[in-house]
């Protein structure tokens, strides 16, 4: 029983990390394409961008709903404290989602598309911005009382590190969005996104380097974790691997390869994610609430493993099938009607 009360929260930490990673990867390119659409030079190009998402944006976004619901069930305390503390960034994200979600259908049917174009692009940007602030806010820590309830103020999440995280996340989304478009488009449009991918790779790299250097400076608590063995070796390895992957990404972009830039970008995301998870674990809100303190009752965690965990392969399978059905280059601004 004692081991179970350690094991179950750890399993759920792993599952939630998986959901969050899938979300950041999938909706990352989704939001990235949305942000890129702000710079589209013609209605036709924007139409192709949106068509490349039209069949999957909803499923991509659902990974966040799934993550949120699972967090609610598996770590109720973390769910309520985090969302309570991050009221403003969460609602920035939610309003962003509202605008971009309705833009797909409304733009398609509108004669004058300007407003819905803007709703789509700006909504994507707002959603990414809110997520960046929320991530930055959580990583910076949340002020809680002995029971784990939020006792800080409304604007606690807004500080230099969280601005840095938000900007870098947006760059990362633009990067993965660009490489996704490199994979899904051809010709002029593809050439444009080879360029945006390179630009975004540089800005993301700069952001990542600044964050990496700033983390031990700003967060005393992270310092011990980062510089103590055995973690120090892992954390020394991550930046090296990261730079290697960025080099590979750069080469694939220079060689105008189709699909590989996306793969390297995904690996860069994965590496960053693993690094973050290692810094955070076993906390769910860094330095204030551990996964063991926030975890739901073992009976709930067990039943959730059965009813959600078992479904993960099924969900992955039919999502992959979706991508398989709609594979291939997109050449026109719609899939038909």
């Amino acid at each position: 029983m004692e081991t179970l009360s350690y094991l179950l929260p750890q399993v759920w930490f792993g599952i939630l990390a998986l959901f969050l990673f899938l979300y950041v990867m999938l909706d990352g390119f989704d939001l990235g394409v949305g942000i890129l659409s702000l710079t589209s030079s013609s209605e036709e190009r924007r139409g192709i961008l949106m068509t490349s998402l039209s069949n999957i944006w909803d499923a991509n976004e659902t990974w966040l709903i799934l993550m949120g619901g699972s967090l609610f069930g598996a770590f109720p305390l973390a769910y309520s404290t985090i969302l309570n503390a991050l009221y403003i960034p969460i609602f920035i994200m939610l309003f962003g989602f509202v605008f971009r979600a309705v833009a797909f259908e409304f733009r398609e049917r509108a004669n004058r598309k300007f407003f819905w174009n803007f709703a789509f692009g700006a909504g994507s940007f707002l959603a990414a911005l809110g997520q960046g602030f929320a991530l930055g806010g959580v990583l910076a820590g949340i002020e809680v009382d002995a029971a784990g309830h939020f006792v800080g103020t409304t604007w606690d999440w807004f500080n230099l590190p969280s601005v840095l995280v938000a900007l870098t996340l947006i760059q990362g989304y633009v990067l993965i969005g660009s490489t996704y478009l490199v994979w899904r488009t051809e010709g002029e449009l593809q050439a444009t996104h080879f360029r945006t991918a390179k630009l975004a790779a540089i800005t993301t790299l700069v952001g990542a380097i600044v964050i990496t250097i700033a983390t031990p400076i700003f967060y005393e608590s992270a310092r011990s974790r980062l510089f103590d063995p055995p973690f120090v070796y892992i954390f020394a390895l991550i930046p090296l691997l990261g730079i290697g992957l960025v080099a590979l990404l750069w080469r694939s972009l220079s060689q105008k390869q189709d699909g590989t830039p996306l793969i390297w970008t995904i690996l860069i995301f994965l590496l960053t994610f693993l690094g973050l998870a290692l810094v955070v674990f076993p906390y769910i809100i860094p330095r204030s609430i551990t996964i063991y303190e926030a975890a739901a009752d073992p009976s709930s965690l067990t039943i959730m493993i059965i009813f959600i965990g078992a479904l993960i392969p099924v969900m992955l399978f039919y999502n992959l099938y979706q991508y398989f059905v709609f594979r291939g280059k997109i050449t026109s601004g719609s899939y038909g009607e």
Partner: protein
Amino acid sequence: MDFLSDTVVLSRMQFALTAIFHMLWPVLTTGMAIYLVIVEGLWLKTRNPTYYYHARFWAKLYVLNFGIGVASGIPMGFQFGTNWAPLSEAIGNFFGSIIGFEASWAFMLEAAFLGIMVFGWERVNPVVHYVATILVAFGANLSTFWILTANSWLQTPAGGEMVDGKFIVKDYFQAVLNPFMPNSVLHMFTATLETSLFVIGGISAWYLINQRQPEFFTKSFKIVLALAIAVAPLQIYVGHLSGEQVYHYQPTKLAAMEAQWETIPAGQAADWSAIAFPNDQLERNDWEISIPNGLGYILELKPKLSEPVLGLKEWAPADRPHLLSLIYYSFRIMVAIGFFFAGLMLLTVVQWLRGKLAPESISQQRWLLRGWLFAAPLGYIAVECGWIVRCVGRQPWAMYGEIRTADAASNLPPGNVLTTLTLFSAVYTLLFFAALYFGSRVIRQGPNLDLPIPGVESKPAVNVEPGEFVPNQRPVEAQQ
């Protein structure tokens, strides 16, 4: 304007606004999904292109609603944490896991196969497409199941107990099968289907009144009518069972629905109030018209009840719902719409049996068709009214009998909630009118009967194949 500085009131208003707005869209998509399964199935069976065009036409409205449903649904899931953190922490063990089940079982299924259903006609074969349509409908209705399970559990908590302010689940299945669950799921399932049927029927009636494509829209009209024969009476019956459950499990709500101040002891005549002006301050109805013995007949089919009906005065004002007129009239409007639907269905069936609904002559049934047009928005109103009765009527409780709404709300600066509430009001008003505008455009455009049919080689306008001489046959003529 005290409420502007009261976070609890503002959070309640925000939840009410976002829930009322959100409800408008899935109520159509979950019900219409079943209709789409039926017409696509008819197409696969008969290969009659009309059914294919029905699937394509109604799916346009479907996908329009779906987008707004998703857009307005996401804020619902997050508000539990942002605005109701203490509640979320207390009930997360059960309620949170149900939200997780809803996302993994229902939302993901619906979202992933919707792409194939809407955009995949040319990309997968018709049977695979049909499977996708079925899975979308299944996913949508599965969300009804999970969300109603979660809400019913808040109404009639079961399957565990509160320990140190947190709900610990002892028996998961008992918690899922809480007293309200089966009937509430059925009531909502029937509500989405019935609303969708009368929307589809109402839109079809509009085309028939205007004599546009009568052949085509008589089909949808009759499919809808055939389903309504079962659904409309069923809903009245299920609604009645729901009322009985409220009587047994939530006496404060029943008293509010009936504006009943004094307890009616068992064995005494129970009147049913039809119209009243409830007065919360003076604890009486200023004015009312009641039907003698009505409540007895409604609840137990006899004039005198075997159990007492408790009046509102049995509880201290802090322990019973307020906003009585809202609850009282919402309930009556919902019931009236339920009976109107059943009546309209019966009348239409009579005309059908008399052979008046043939495509050539159906447009002569002007008043009947106008009735259907009038009925199109009523389902939404009934659903919203039902939810108002359900959730305003359970106050002051967030989790009935366990957690008060006032203790459930996050401690937020009122300014934050006021800002988001104002933004939601503005954004949702915009979306509502945009949806009406684009929806009416889709309807005015009408079905596109030139779409290629999957699996059927489209016939070229002029037959260019070299004519072949076959004895005893006229030369091959240009087709179509």
